[in-house]
């Protein structure tokens, strides 16, 4: 690794070329963490600067809670569990999955505005742009889950498996959201603009969230659809979250399935995103 002397004193000698202030006194891994954190910080600030976007993106999931709780809920039979308790884990997964649109849009915007071009000319870690984006979105998801839990409580949702059951459920949700974010990062890097990115992710999200056990029991679907719904990640994560938050059923098998899906997706999707980033611009 090249070393450039750090010259703290401002040289006023007008003929000498400026001395770069770049320092290299830390290990590559610690710089990668520092750079990832710096980009996370930047993305979080950006989120707080557009509070209206945050506000309106919360309205949609709240509408879904009200719609399913009060309009469709009465017609949906969920043996052994109150519908509102059945529904809320589905809402959590749907909200964080759709929230990953922000990951794609954010990266597509950074690309089209030339920010990624600049980042790639800096002596920063190559991983930082993707790590910073996905981590900021993870932090945002913590907030989103807390907010949706609050709204859920107002319409009758209760956690029946204790605080640790709830926390474990949140952990499963966050891990899944992180895996999805890395997948959507690739879409964001491929899209020519934020708007295009948004249009590209929609056809992926709709079948995954609705043809799942998020809102209705899979058993009520036609056989061919059940085959899909039973074997896709959203159902796995919803089942695990529901088991952890609601209790009363064995949690081992659904939690294992959810972890396997999320970790598997992360291991496949993250390298694809990184490879795409290397070729970006």
């Amino acid at each position, binding site marked *: *690794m*090249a070393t*450039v002397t*750090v010259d*703290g004193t401002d040289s006023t000698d*007008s*003929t*000498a*070329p*400026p*001395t*770069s*202030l*770049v*320092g*290299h006194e*830390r290990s590559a891994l610690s*710089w990668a963490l*520092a*750079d990832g954190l*710096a*980009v996370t*910080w*930047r993305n979080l*600030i*950006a989120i707080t*600067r*557009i509070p209206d976007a945050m506000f309106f993106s919360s309205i949609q999931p709240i509408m879904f809670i009200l719609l399913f709780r009060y309009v469709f809920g009465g017609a949906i039979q969920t043996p052994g569990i109150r519908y509102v308790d059945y529904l809320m884990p589905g809402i959590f997964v749907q909200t964080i999955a759709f929230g990953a649109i922000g990951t794609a849009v954010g990266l597509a915007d950074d690309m089209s*505005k*030339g*920010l990624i*071009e*600049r*980042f*790639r*000319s*800096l*002596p*920063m870690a190559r991983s*930082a742009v993707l790590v910073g984006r996905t981590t900021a979105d993870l932090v945002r998801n913590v907030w989103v889950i807390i907010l949706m839990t609050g709204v859920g409580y107002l319409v009758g949702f209760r956690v029946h498996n204790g605080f640790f059951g709830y926390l474990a459920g949140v952990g499963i949700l966050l891990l899944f959201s992180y895996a999805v974010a890395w997948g959507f990062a690739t879409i964001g890097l491929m899209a020519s603009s934020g708007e295009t990115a948004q249009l590209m992710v929609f056809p992926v999200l709709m079948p995954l969230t609705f043809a799942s056990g998020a809102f209705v029991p899979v058993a009520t679907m036609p056989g061919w659809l059940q085959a899909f719904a039973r074997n896709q990640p959203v159902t796995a994560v919803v089942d695990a979250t529901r088991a952890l938050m609601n209790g009363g059923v064995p949690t081992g098998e659904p939690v294992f399935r959810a972890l396997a899906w999320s970790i598997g997706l992360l291991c496949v999707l993250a390298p694809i995103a990184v490879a795409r980033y290397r070729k970006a*611009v």
Partner: protein
Amino acid sequence: MTEAAISVEGLRKKFGSVVALDGIDFDVPAGSVFGLLGPNGAGKTTAVRILTTILTPDGGRAKVLGRDVVKDQSFVRASIGLAGQFAAVDENLTGSENLRLIGKLTHMPRHLIKARVDELLERFDLTEAATRPSKTYSGGMKRRLDVAAALVHRPPVLFLDEPTTGLDPAGRADVWEMVEELVTDGTTVLLTTQYLEEADRLAEQLAVVDHGKVIASGSPAKLKATIGSTVIDFGLSSQAAAKRAAKVLIGLTTSEPIVDGKTVEINAKDGAKVLPDLLRALDKARIKPTTINLREPSLDDVFLALTGHKAEEEAA
């Protein structure tokens, strides 16, 4: 100083079947301003992206401060600043947050960042706007912030890709002043532009690029001397008349007249002096120009003179 801060040798880059760089060569002496002059699609941005390690070349070599841009990426990145073709600032961050972010990402020692950011805000006249999100800035302010961001870590070599494209005359004058100031700091600057006037004003040396090739290089004065310092356009009633006029005018100035539609274009060392001779010759041949226009040569004229074709617009 004779040592080259940037040296480029036979650089090639293809995108699919599009040849963006077809073997270009140039050297930039340390502490000087060098201009890459060329129309849209000439390959300027591609050259800058290779020199700033964003793209890898298909062939040839490029060095910054004596280090290869492919093999020694971390050294090169630590030594350069880049202000790309579009102002790359985060619109949601304030001016000072944008600069601080670059300070962190270039791994500057923490205690130096704040002082350096304040110094740059002051220098680029952004102190007052420093705490506002940069989406509220004017085009000129965004450009200034963008260039300031390229300078945070005080790189000895700076790349400016079309720094004034899209700016109003006041913004353009700002950028020019700023570049002139940088040179007094000893910074080596490579800038790309589509405007001969800009290259003339700022660059000590320049290379004219077309279709990925350097078609002329040297000082702006030398380049202008080869095509004459004034351009005279005669507008005629028809293309046939223009062709006849061109024949009449051959030999009266150092360069050949060029017919372009109904216009005849002549490059002359001293337009005002030769104009009466030219008019007399036309009068003798009973050709009456409908318009006469005397002006400074533009990039188009340079291209016409050097290649015999106009600078074509291609995809940016």
